[in-house]
């Protein structure tokens, strides 16, 4: 470590000191290791799927196996990687530091969140190990309740349990941000990352319980042999979809809002300038969270939902795009008259903007009722959400990980290698997913492994891109791990960034701050610049 003082990493090196920790920073690391594990499994599933899709015939794996692969990929990526990623890793680590607190409001509840996540994950992995699930991550009834012969109940139970961990995390963040800010840290002086975590936590707390009851009802129906989604007693399979998407649409905002918050932290630092439109960015996070609860029906335009409901959902879905657009405009304006450097976090942030804009614009296509009728259930949708989730969220996660790596580990990562990885990611990602927009409009349905021959060229391009993307993720895995022992020692503030987290040692001591900081300035108060881009 960098100096003789105790920090949170050196304060105890037994297994027990990690597994029974109450320290939010250690819990963040525990989550990092856990989500990495699930990410690798889900990525392997994706690799197998992309290999299968090289040829039009379903010849690499059986249909049943392919169906289990895409289900496993979706479930693990959504609930065991994306949803916990930034909130439970970066959020856990940074929220108390950024607000000048000693820990979260309920440290033991935080540890409980991790255990719930791990128990849920155990059930999910076990369900996969003993044969898997083939319903798709969306579990539509009546296939999931009455027709699938796979381990639906165990998988759903795993998600249910992990969901409670999610709820407790959101609860913890809300209380912490609301009640434990350092003296002088008013709402409009908070870093925008905190605003985004707060908005995310509102969704976590209000939407996840609906998922819980939906899964519970599905499990009950499957066990009982009949239920409220069963047409034979007058039940409605579409009710399941309404309940499921009432959670799952806000869930995608759980996934992206923290990423948007990370970008709002990186851009001012690497442009050395106060962010443009702070209040608008802050309010846009809250608007996305709120409007995001009102658009779930856009997943159901062709489900036999009423036309008029479709129209309301379509209009609101267009509106929810606007706060996101506002963020992008504000980030771009922040660069004006700034002093820009292109270290890895900034490259990831710029890549994010590129990919998120494409993903967001294709969201407009999907919000358009008539176009959605054509592209719903096709690879167009697959491309859209991967642009947002992978091109957006995972890229933001990588950017944030690199940005705060020195704070978390006390070490720098190898900069040139990291910049290379960021560029490879951008190229590989576009090659993987852009052809899928073409495939979608051509009419290739999703969740198929046997397809019409005219789709092959785009599938081959996509698989080629995926192999490049894999390198872009493997590289950081290797050099970040390497840097933990061998990276250059980092000081408290290697990026000369504003923010309370940079005012304490790298890595921070267990208690975060020797004395409670007092905040007197707004966020992102970078000094004025001279013509060379250095502080005057």
């Amino acid at each position: 470590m960098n100096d003789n003082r105790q920090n949170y990493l050196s304060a105890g090196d037994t297994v027990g000191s990690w597994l029974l920790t109450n320290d939010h920073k250690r819990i963040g690391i525990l989550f990092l290791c856990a989500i990495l594990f699930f990410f690798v499994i889900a990525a392997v599933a994706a690799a197998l799927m992309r290999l299968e899709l090289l040829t039009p015939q379903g010849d690499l794996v059986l249909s049943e196996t392919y169906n289990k692969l895409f289900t496993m990929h979706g479930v693990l990526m959504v609930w065991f990687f994306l949803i916990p990623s930034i909130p439970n890793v970066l959020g856990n680590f940074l929220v108390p530091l950024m607000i000048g607190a000693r820990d979260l409001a309920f440290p033991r509840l935080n540890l409980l969140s991790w255990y719930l996540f791990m128990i849920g994950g155990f059930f999910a992995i076990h369900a996969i190990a003993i044969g898997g699930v083939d319903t798709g991550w969306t579990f539509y009834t009546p296939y999931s309740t009455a027709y699938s012969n796979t381990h639906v109940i165990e998988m759903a139970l795993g998600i249910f349990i992990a969901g409670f961990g999610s709820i407790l995390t959101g609860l913890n963040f809300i209380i912490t941000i609301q009640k434990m800010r350092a003296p002088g840290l008013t709402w409009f002086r908070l870093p925008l990352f905190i605003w985004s975590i707060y908005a995310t936590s509102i969704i976590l707390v209000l939407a996840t319980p609906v998922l819980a009851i939906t899964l519970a009802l599905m499990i009950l129906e499957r066990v009982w042999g009949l239920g409220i989604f069963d047409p034979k007693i007058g039940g409605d399979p579409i009710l399941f979809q309404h309940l499921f998407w009432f959670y799952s649409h806000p869930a995608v905002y759980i996934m992206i809002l923290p990423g948007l918050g990370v970008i709002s932290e990186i851009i001012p630092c690497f442009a050395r300038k106060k962010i443009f439109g702070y209040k608008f960015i802050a309010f846009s996070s809250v608007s996305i969270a709120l409007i995001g609860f009102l658009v779930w029906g856009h997943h159901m335009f062709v489900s036999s939902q009423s036309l008029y409901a479709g129209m309301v959902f379509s209009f609101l879905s267009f509106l929810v795009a606007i706060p996101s657009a506002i963020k992008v405009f504000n980030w771009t304006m922040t660069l004006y008259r700034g002093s820009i450097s292109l270290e890895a976090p900034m490259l990831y942030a710029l890549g994010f903007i590129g990919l998120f804009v494409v993903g967001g614009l294709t969201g407009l296509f999907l919000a358009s009722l008539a176009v959605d009728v054509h592209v719903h259930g096709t690879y167009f949708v697959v491309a859209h959400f991967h642009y947002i989730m992978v091109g957006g969220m995972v890229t933001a996660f990588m950017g944030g990980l690199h940005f705060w790596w020195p704070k978390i580990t006390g070490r720098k990562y190898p900069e040139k290698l990291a910049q290379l990885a960021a560029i490879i990611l951008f190229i590989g990602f576009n090659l993987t997913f852009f052809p899928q927009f073409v495939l979608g409009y051509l009419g290739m349905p999703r969740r198929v492994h046997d397809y019409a021959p005219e789709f092959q060229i785009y599938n081959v391009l996509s698989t080629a891109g995926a192999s490049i993307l894999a390198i872009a993720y493997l590289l950081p895995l290797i050099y970040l791990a390497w840097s933990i022992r061998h990276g250059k020692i980092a000081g408290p503030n290697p990026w000369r960034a504003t923010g309370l987290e940079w005012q304490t040692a790298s890595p921070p001591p267990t208690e975060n701050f020797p004395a409670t900081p007092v905040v007197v300035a707004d966020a992102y108060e970078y000094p004025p610049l001279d013509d060379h881009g250095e502080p005057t």
Partner: protein
Amino acid sequence: MTEKNSIVAEQFVDAAQQNEATALGLWTFIATEILFFGGLFLAYAIYRHFYYHEFDLASRRTDLFFGTLNSVILLTSSLTMVLAVQAAKRDQAKMVVRFLSLTIFLGASFLVVKAFEYHKDIADQLVPGEKFNAALPPAAQLFFWLYWAMTGLHAIHILIGMGLLSVMFFLTRRGRISAPHFAPLELTGLYWHFVDIVWLFLYPLLYLVNRHA
């Protein structure tokens, strides 16, 4: 203002911050529970609208006596819970223990009455499935599926509540609940009241609607 939490955990700056945080935490948790039960209430509302006639017939088959008895039991238990918290404010540990025991006893009585009620429901063939009462139309099974799911979920919450009450019981016996430090008891009380309120919504929907005529 009564100082209700004199043991301040190290992440908090002072007792006031801890009190505010824990109270906000519990209210937030109750919000999640409302959303959780909400899915069931939504399903009930929707199916009641589409199958008014079947729900009408089905509603008359729940046992009004057991339902009402349980409502009285649960309301009384909320009273004893309030009295327990009041006794804690007055530093009367013995009274706290007595009222907590009474609350736990009433909670257990609720579950016992429920067990009798469920037994009768099964005998009356009100379990959806092949043996469902032939005198009722098929869609009445939707009502009863929801009946079993909602009362079952509620009963699970009663059990959890009783667990929390038992923990409070032991903590009080060990002197850890007293006038300066009764926040955990108050929060447990809030949870118990919430479970009671859920029942106050279930009761009319499952037992009282369509009882006239």
